[in-house]
């Protein structure tokens, strides 16, 4: 098993690519940078495929396959190794990350062909791949955290890629700082887990949890599991843009569009879901944590979807849509349907990456315009982009038989089946309706109607094949990606859930209803979901298919609601007033003006000025008058003699200093 035994090669290849491009790429033409970047990612993808092939030949006892390469930190009983592992969950993540990553690398060569800093972009993008692969392959929380922080760093670098633009560099900082808040919780969670279980290796940790038969902590009891899970979930909230830490993701759209597709839609932001799924044994031991995850996910899904209804920037709509879909995944985890969450993660990676890339193609065609109010009628000019984007829209809206339908359906079903999960289901369904509406609104505004741009200045053109190729592949995946779970609909096996069963196994939510009733329920819920999606489509069609002025009328008649949504519930303003401004005030007035300027600078300057004052006084003794120097010499001699004669204790001191034996000396003088 050449690759499985050398799993490190999968993350190492992008790291090499990043280093080579970062160090030498500046002097190379774009073509060579392409070869290095795509070569590294492509090889990594090939290695991942080979690893998966070898993985499929392992016997169940060998899974999860853990390989220890070297000890990274050893302190007392604590060991954090560079250990990589592969199990079914990792396989899914590995293929999504390398596969989608490769497609987006290819797309980027077309998208950024005329941009400056070309090698820098690919160096960062490869660096991201490296950290993301470390994250999904890590076999302990510490190494996972390395990847976790690393993807945050790459995200920061890529959001601020156009760093000369103030808004872009601000958005980068915002993303980094908001993530720090979550990471703080994540680290505390790790510390707590280590204190309780004395290990952070996934295998050892989860086995000891499973073997100890620890009691599940009921609702309201804040034991170790609950606290640790909530802390881990805090980190997940930051990384995966959930309430209340979602604010950085919409701003992250300042980065180049391929970055939004890869990092802020398909892979990095799903890391939170991955961590929750990876720690599912911990989460299932705490009722409170699961309920919190479900409620936060559901609330985020609904909340972000409503904001998405009125946004006019094409990428912002997609950003809020991403936040909303991530909420779905957490909802799935929260109701115990981890494999449904991971399934949605995978399908979402396909269609959301496609949506972003297609949006990038639209922006490319419009010469940089992102405002949907200035588009319209583009379907004639950019057919392939239109077709692929429509596919993705149908997929995300949940129209069968595309991928989104199956994954969303299984989440809604799990929520419905969960005890007391009907409100969650209701909000999930509402979100599905809203999703369908804002996505079709996007399609109608962008591709239908009359052109609202200046046709003399904007030269709409289809993108090159380096961009369209990935779009087509992703469109195919968006269509067929869901079929893995399709047989479940007519009572067969859900291949995806079966595949992940060794990981999540018995921890999945147990459905207490009979097979036939369950199947019937499933069909009913699927129909309801499709009706909701069609309803959203209908409303969007009614409002936006022709320029009727109806949207404006509605906006006018519900001005307070519309303004609230347009301003994203004033959350940014709220955070600015409640957290940022007081923090700035404290930093400026207390830490800077009081502590730094007065205390620290004051001490340093005070020492210096005291010495100046002393020097100023003392320097007058150097008068240049030789005779006054003579007087000082004499005075000094007299003082020493006086001390030696009249202060007996001093004699020993002086004697030691001079190496003389003073008592003898005095005896000589006074015989």
């Amino acid at each position, binding site marked *: 098993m050449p690759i499985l035994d050398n799993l490190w090669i999968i993350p190492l290849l992008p790291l090499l690519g990043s280093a080579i491009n970062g160090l030498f790429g500046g002097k190379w033409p774009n073509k060579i940078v392409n070869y290095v970047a795509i070569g590294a990612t492509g090889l990594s993808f090939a290695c991942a495929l080979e690893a998966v092939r070898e993985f499929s030949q392992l016997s169940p006892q060998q899974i999860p396959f853990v390989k220890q390469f070297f000890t990274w930190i050893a302190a007392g009983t604590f060991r954090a190794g560079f250990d990589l592992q592969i199990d079914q969950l990792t396989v899914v993540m590995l293929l999504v990350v390398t596969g989608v990553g490769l497609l987006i690398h290819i797309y980027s060569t077309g998208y950024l062909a005329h941009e400056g800093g070309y090698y820098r972009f690919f160096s960062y993008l490869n660096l991201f791949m490296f950290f993301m692969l470390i994250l999904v392959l890590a076999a302990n929380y510490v190494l996972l955290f390395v990847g976790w922080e690393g993807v945050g760093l790459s995200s920061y670098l890529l959001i601020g890629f156009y760093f000369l633009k103030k808004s872009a560099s601000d958005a980068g900082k915002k993303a980094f700082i908001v993530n720090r808040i979550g990471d703080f919780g994540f680290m505390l969670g790790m510390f707590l887990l280590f204190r309780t279980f004395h290990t952070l290796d996934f295998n050892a940790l989860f086995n000891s949890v499973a073997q100890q038969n620890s009691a599940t902590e009921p609702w309201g009891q804040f034991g170790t599991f609950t606290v640790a899970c909530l802390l881990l979930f805090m980190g997940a909230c930051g990384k995966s843009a959930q309430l209340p830490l979602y604010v950085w993701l919409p701003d992250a759209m300042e980065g180049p569009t391929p970055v939004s597709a890869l990092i802020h839609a398909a892979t990095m932001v799903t890391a939170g879901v991955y961590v929750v799924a990876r720690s599912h044994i911990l989460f299932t031991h705490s009722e409170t944590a699961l309920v919190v995850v479900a409620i936060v996910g559901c609330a985020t899904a609904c909340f972000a979807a409503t904001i998405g209804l009125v946004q006019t920037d094409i990428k912002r709509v997609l950003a809020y849509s991403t936040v909303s879909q991530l909420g779905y995944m957490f909802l799935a985890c929260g109701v115990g349907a981890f494999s449904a969450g991971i399934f949605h993660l995978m399908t979402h990676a396909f269609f959301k990456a496609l949506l972003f890339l297609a949006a990038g193609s639209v922006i490319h065609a419009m010469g940089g315009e992102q405002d949907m109010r200035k588009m319209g009628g583009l379907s004639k000019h950019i057919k392939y982009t239109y077709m692929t984007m429509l596919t993705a829209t149908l997929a995300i809206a949940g129209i069968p038989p595309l991928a989104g339908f199956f994954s969303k359906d299984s989440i809604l079903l799990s929520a419905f089946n969960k005890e007391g999960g009907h409100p969650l289901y209701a909000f999930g369904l509402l979100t599905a309706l809203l999703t369908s509406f804002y996505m079709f609104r996007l399609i109608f505004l962008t591709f239908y109607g009359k052109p609202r741009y200046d046709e003399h200045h904007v030269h709409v053109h289809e993108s090159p094949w380096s961009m369209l190729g990935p779009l087509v592949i992703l469109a195919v995946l968006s269509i067929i990606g869901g079929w893995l779970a399709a047989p479940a609909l007519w009572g067969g096996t859900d291949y995806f859930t079966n595949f992940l069963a060794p990981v999540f196994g018995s921890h999945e939510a147990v459905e207490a209803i009979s097979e036939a009733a369950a199947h019937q329920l499933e069909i009913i819920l699927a129909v309801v979901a499709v009706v909701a999606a069609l309803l959203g489509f209908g409303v969007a069609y009614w409002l936006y298919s022709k320029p009727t002025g109806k949207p404006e009328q509605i906006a006018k008649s519900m001005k307070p609601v519309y303004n609230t949504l347009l301003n994203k519930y004033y959350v940014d303003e709220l955070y600015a007033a409640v957290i940022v401004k007081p923090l700035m005030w404290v930093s400026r007035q207390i830490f800077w003006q009081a502590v730094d300027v007065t205390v620290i600078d004051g001490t340093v300057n005070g020492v210096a000025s005291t010495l100046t004052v002393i020097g100023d006084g003392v*320097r*007058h003794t*150097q*008068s*240049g*008058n*030789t*005779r006054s120097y*003579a*007087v000082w010499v*004499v005075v000094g001699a007299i003082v020493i003699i006086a001390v030696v004669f009249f202060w007996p204790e001093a004699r020993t001191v002086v004697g030691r200093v001079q190496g003389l034996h003073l008592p003898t000396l005095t005896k*000589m003088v006074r*015989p």
Partner: protein
Amino acid sequence: MIPTHYYLVLSAILFGLGVVAFIFRRNIITIFMSIELMLNAVNLAFVAFSQAWNRLDGQVFVLFVIVVAAAEAAVGLGIIILIQRNRQSLNVERVDLLKL
């Protein structure tokens, strides 16, 4: 035999005179001479102790002091001649370039 402290008192008086002259005279040559006076006052004390304790160390030390004084006189007189050439004066108060 003359008691030791007689010599010591004489030595102290000579030394004191040397100090007073060292401080209050302005002419560099006079100051130089007062230094010689102090050195010789010390020499006297050394010799007196040497005799009182019946040991030779003091007398050997005197020889050293004389040698150092001779060397010092050679260097010092050279400096004095240069000062005279540059300043056309032997007043120490005019040698004040190191003043702040």
